[in-house]
């Protein structure tokens, strides 16, 4: 575990120099929030500015977990860095665990910044425990996409990863009601996406309504599916990584 933490620490230092990460996970949600947050009255039973705060926190956290990790894993596999690590005493799962840890750590600032913006710019008010619960839901939800990133990064070369993650991410963002609140037939389809589940759990908490168990179970099922895919990808490439 010590070696895995050391790798995670080095990865973290490395990420601080990466502009693309900051653009996608930090800047984009902030800019969108400033433009859109005051354009509506309400959504999902809460103030629009509160809904959009949750949506943008989800956008930043999920895009950081998926886009950043998938392309980096794929590139590092192509470079042979993962192979090089296999020749060191680092435990076999150390690389993936370090990636997940760094992803978890870097998601926190993107959530906190959007929450601060929601409080000071959007005028969102709720109890302290509600802030914490909503933050944790979005934070843990990003794990789902970090797992998917591992599955994609191990399976596809870098030039294919870019369009694949873009397709998946925008699909889940639009269908999940992150860009705009869903209604009608689109909502019926979108209700099963992990993005919708994370946003809806959060708005239910903010709105004081009870959270349906189905939403929580849905998130868990997505996590299991993507984690399973990640394990399959890692195993399938065991001799070529």
């Amino acid at each position, binding site marked *: 575990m010590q070696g895995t933490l050391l790798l995670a620490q*080095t990865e973290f230092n490395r990420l601080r120099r990466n502009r693309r990460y900051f653009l996608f996970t930090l800047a984009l949600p902030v800019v969108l929030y400033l433009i859109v947050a005051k354009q509506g009255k309400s959504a999902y039973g809460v103030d629009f500015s509160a809904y959009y705060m949750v949506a943008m926190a989800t956008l930043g956290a999920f895009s950081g977990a998926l886009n950043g990790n998938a392309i980096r894993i794929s590139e590092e596999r192509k470079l042979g860095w993962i192979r090089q690590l296999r020749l060191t005493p680092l435990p076999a799962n150390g690389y993936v665990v370090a990636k997940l840890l760094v992803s978890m750590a870097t998601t926190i600032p993107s959530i906190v910044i959007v929450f601060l913006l929601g409080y000071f710019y959007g005028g969102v008010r709720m109890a302290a425990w509600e802030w914490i619960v909503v933050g944790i839901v979005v934070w843990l939800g990003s794990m789902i996409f970090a797992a998917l990133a591992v599955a994609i990064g191990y399976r596809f070369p870098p030039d294919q990863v870019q369009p694949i993650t873009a397709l998946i991410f925008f699909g889940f963002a639009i269908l999940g009601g992150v860009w705009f609140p869903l209604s009608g037939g689109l909502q019926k389809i979108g209700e099963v996406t992990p993005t919708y589940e994370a946003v809806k759990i959060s708005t239910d908490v903010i709105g004081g309504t009870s959270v349906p168990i189905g939403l929580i179970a849905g998130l868990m099922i997505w996590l299991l599916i993507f984690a399973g895919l990640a394990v399959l990808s890692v195993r399938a490439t065991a*001799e070529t990584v």
Partner: protein
Amino acid sequence: MSYSGTGPGQVVSFENVSKHYGSLKAVDGLSLDLRKGETVALLGPNGAGKSTSLDMLLALRKPTSGKIKMFGSDPYHAVKSGQVGAMLQSGGLMPEVTVRELVTLVTGLHPRPVPVDTTLRRAGVAQIAEQRVDRLSGGQTQRVRFALAIVGDVDLIVLDEPTTAMDVETRRLFWASMKEEVAEGKTLLFATHYLEEADQAADRILVINRGRLLADGTPAEIKARAGAKQLSFRLGGVDEPFLLGLPGLVSLEIRNDVVHIQSRDSDATLYALLDAGYRPKEVEIGSLGLEQAFIAITAEDDRSNAAEPVAGETAS
């Protein structure tokens, strides 16, 4: 030298190891062992199975059949307990960090770390320690890869074509620092296609072709195996049947009045020629180089296999 079971001083053993990809036999019943303190060159043409053998030794690939042992345990545990340092062609470096950061990281993963500055100096990368890894030249990258193989106090160093992309001077420095490592009692196994490198650096050479071990011995023994010496002279009006009857003769080649003979015993061959009353001119006797020996050994193997072509070879 054949496989002799787990004995004292034994570092690595391959026991009838094969790796098949479909019908292609990349490694085909390979048996060998390495003992402590040896510097061993693994020599073979492209596609001979060198890289696949090293991959299996380093637990990157699993043998289809057979058994590999390193320090008495399986390769995976030997690698994870930090007993082996390796540098592979296919191994890459983490981008976006400096050389020092990368070496510090990998040193930190090792149970018996060597001070980072020592590693940087030995690998000849102290001057470029603050440069970013993804902005190095090919030769510099190669030296950083080597640095990662020696960050720990390992017992075995495995190198796959280590001096590729290095210029002559860097190559000389590389082998000088390698000798420092070997002097500490480490065992060294390296694959190469530079024959003079195998000749100079190794005290034992393993020749492999088509995934099988063809020859195993000192550089001198390998050279001797291919038919010893080359005898050349000029002789007008030669009698070919007579020459073919000379003692020790392996092969004969006549161009106009210049004769080239490969002989197992060049002295006896020459004396018999003189005793028969011939007076050849411009007599030269020379050793076959390792390169000629290597070509002779692998060519002989390819000839004897021509009757049963290996699948996959038709593509090349």
